[in-house]
């Protein structure tokens, strides 16, 4: 059985974070599955396309993103801080790594992880004898 998945179980928000806590945040993730693929949606507010890194290797999916925030002026309220995001999942076997696709819209990353053809569920016809 596969082990270890989420290695950064930090809070999803940096609302009460102090300057000292710069460890990456675990973003919120939805996972959906169809016969053909897995679909992940990940909340990554404040992240530009070029600052997202997605890797699938050895049965592990790694999502890393860098958040940049350089405001001017004096802070009156700071409920979030620009911390990096990181999350790791153990993924099922048979993902076609070459065909993984990623899209980023409105701070949400959409990952498509197609299943390799031979791993898809097939309907087996049962013949009456």
């Amino acid at each position, binding site marked *: *059985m*596969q*082990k*270890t*998945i*989420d*290695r950064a*179980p*930090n*809070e*999803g*928000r940096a*609302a*009460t974070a102090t300057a000292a806590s710069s460890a990456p945040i*675990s973003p*919120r*993730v*939805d*996972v*959906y*599955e*169809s016969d053909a693929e*897995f*679909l992940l*949606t990940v*909340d*990554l*507010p*404040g*992240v*530009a396309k070029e600052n997202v890194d997605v890797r699938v290797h050895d049965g592990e999916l790694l999502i890393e993103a860098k958040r940049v*925030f350089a*405001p*001017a*002026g*004096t*802070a*009156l*309220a*700071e*409920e*979030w801080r620009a911390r990096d995001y990181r999350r790791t*999942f*153990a*993924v*099922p076997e048979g993902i076609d790594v070459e065909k993984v696709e990623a899209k*980023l819209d*409105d*701070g*949400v990353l959409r990952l498509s992880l197609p299943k390799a053809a031979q791993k898809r569920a097939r309907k087996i016809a049962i013949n009456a004898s």
Partner: protein
Amino acid sequence: MFTRLSDSERTFDLLDELRRQMDRVWSDFDDSHGVWRVASPRNLSSAAWPAVNVFDDGDKLVLHADIPGVAAKDVELTLHDGVLTLKGERKVEAPAGYAARRQERPAFRFTRSIALPVKVDPEKTIATAKDGVLTITLGKVAAARPRQIAVRTSA
């Protein structure tokens, strides 16, 4: 100085409790499958949504709100009596023909009101959304802007 008027916190406590329950269900499922599992329960804070940063930049206030998954057109902004209100809906649509394996991203309607610490000019308000962050620039009225006072020596 900076007052939070919204009462969406309670809704979020409820959502987080639902999430916790869902995680438990998933850990049962995951024990038998070993995939898409989290190693330990995650501690997501239940704060008002959206989380907001406010900066005073001399002649203007700049507010940054995290709104992942919310399109700019789905946010309604109003400014009334020195209170800025953000209202909208975050939609999370499960794709048709897919089974949910893990759901941590709630769909909800939100309203958050923020009492501004200084008077702003509604005509000098600009809002833009990029990468899931809403940036609202509020120009201060002339009387609320910092002024340089010349110091003269009394000779």
